[in-house]
């Protein structure tokens, strides 16, 4: 299993192929349905830098005492199909989620030379425990749907769509 640390270099991205399993560490941002709507509506005043950052399609559980984050598995990525190409064209470095994404998303990943990773849906406790730090950076009114910056250590992931447009699905 490959160990990767964010941000990913062009060479690293080029070396990743659909089906590879990886352990990812570094900083990522959570965003799901409502946050995406707001991000895309305000591309000129983004609440966090998109450039080369990774968005994790997730809405975590509240953190219990003594933990940085509660359960924090992925949500269904296909609901973000209409947002992902725009964000990739504006510099987004890639996404983590679960399940297949549309042809338009695959094309945008190839066009921008980025990757989409699949986390294992339903493994929220494992991903929650792999979060070392969690900070709300935008839209706190959205509660669990707010944007959180997570520092993650060894997230187990599968390369789901690579920069060549190959998919694991």
């Amino acid at each position, binding site marked *: 299993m490959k160990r990767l640390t964010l941000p990913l270099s062009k060479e690293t991205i080029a070396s990743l192929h659909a*089906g590879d*399993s990886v352990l990812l560490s570094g900083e990522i941002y959570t965003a799901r349905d*409502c946050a995406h709507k707001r991000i895309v509506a305000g591309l000129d005043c983004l609440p966090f830098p998109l450039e080369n950052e990774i968005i994790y399609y*997730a*809405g*975590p*559980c*509240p*953190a*219990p005492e003594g933990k940085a984050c*509660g*359960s*924090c*598995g992925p*949500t*269904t990525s*296909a*609901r973000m199909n209409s947002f992902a190409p725009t964000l990739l064209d504006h510099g987004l470095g890639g996404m983590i989620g*679960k*399940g*297949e994404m549309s042809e338009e998303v695959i094309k945008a990943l190839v066009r921008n030379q980025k990757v989409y990773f*699949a986390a*294992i*849906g*339903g*493994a*929220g*406790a*494992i991903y*929650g*425990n792999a979060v070392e730090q969690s900070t709300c950076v935008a839209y706190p009114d*959205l*509660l*669990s*749907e707010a944007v959180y910056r997570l520092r993650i250590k060894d997230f*187990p992931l*599968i390369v789901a769509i690579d920069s060549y447009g190959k998919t*694991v*699905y």
Partner: protein
Amino acid sequence: MRTVDTKEIEACVYRLALEAGRNLSPSCLNALTEARDRETGSAARFALDTVLQNAEVAKRETMPVCQDTGMACVFLSIGQEVHLTGKSLSEAIHEGVRRAYSDGCFRKSICDPLTRVNTADNTPAAIHTQIVPGDKVELSFLPKGFGSENMSRLFMLTPAAGRKGIIDSVVSAVKEAGSKPCPPVYIGVGIGGSFDTVALLAKRALLREIGTRHPRKDVASIEEELLTKINALGIGAQGFHGDTAALGVSCEIAPTHIAGLPVAVNVQCHCVRVAKEVL
């Protein structure tokens, strides 16, 4: 006549919500273990290994198994000899949900459908009550995640479509869902009734333990054929291609109108979390 204070129901909902959110049902754990042991696809096997490991972590650390702690679906069978006292039944159920989702650090996932403003305490629950003979109160708690709920479908077939129409509709719904509902899924199917009741039949089917068969042989044979056909789709765990797309299929039936054949497919992800208690 037996008197039951709704405080007891509130405490029971609280216990069941915490139990269900943190633990997979035993029949789900068995089915996942069997699926892992026979899986030949490497990515699908990795996914099944991860979810089994996750179930252990969640249990050990009393964490939610999945961050989607769901819409609280509460099923009650209330004996007609029971007299409920205290606060209203629905308020008692909602208070149980509210406290469990707060104390358990569960995600609050319920919002207004138009404004999308979160109710912040995971209420209201979806409450289904039936009055039955006797003096007991039976409660079942099913936290329903929406990655899978979104993939559920309702078909108003014609009588001519028959058994084949039922099979084709269910298989097409699961095929279309593909990797999105967190396979391997558990499929609840409602057959018959009306537009509204068939969906509830499908949801009630999910309360059955995985692997049990309907007592009617013709219904059981539909369950078996569906399971074989769904697994032959090759979707595999998480859609990574593999041998198990569904852990089980359960069908419930009810008489319908001479003009129709309603079929509802309720898709449940591999985190089957059902907790039950009898008061």
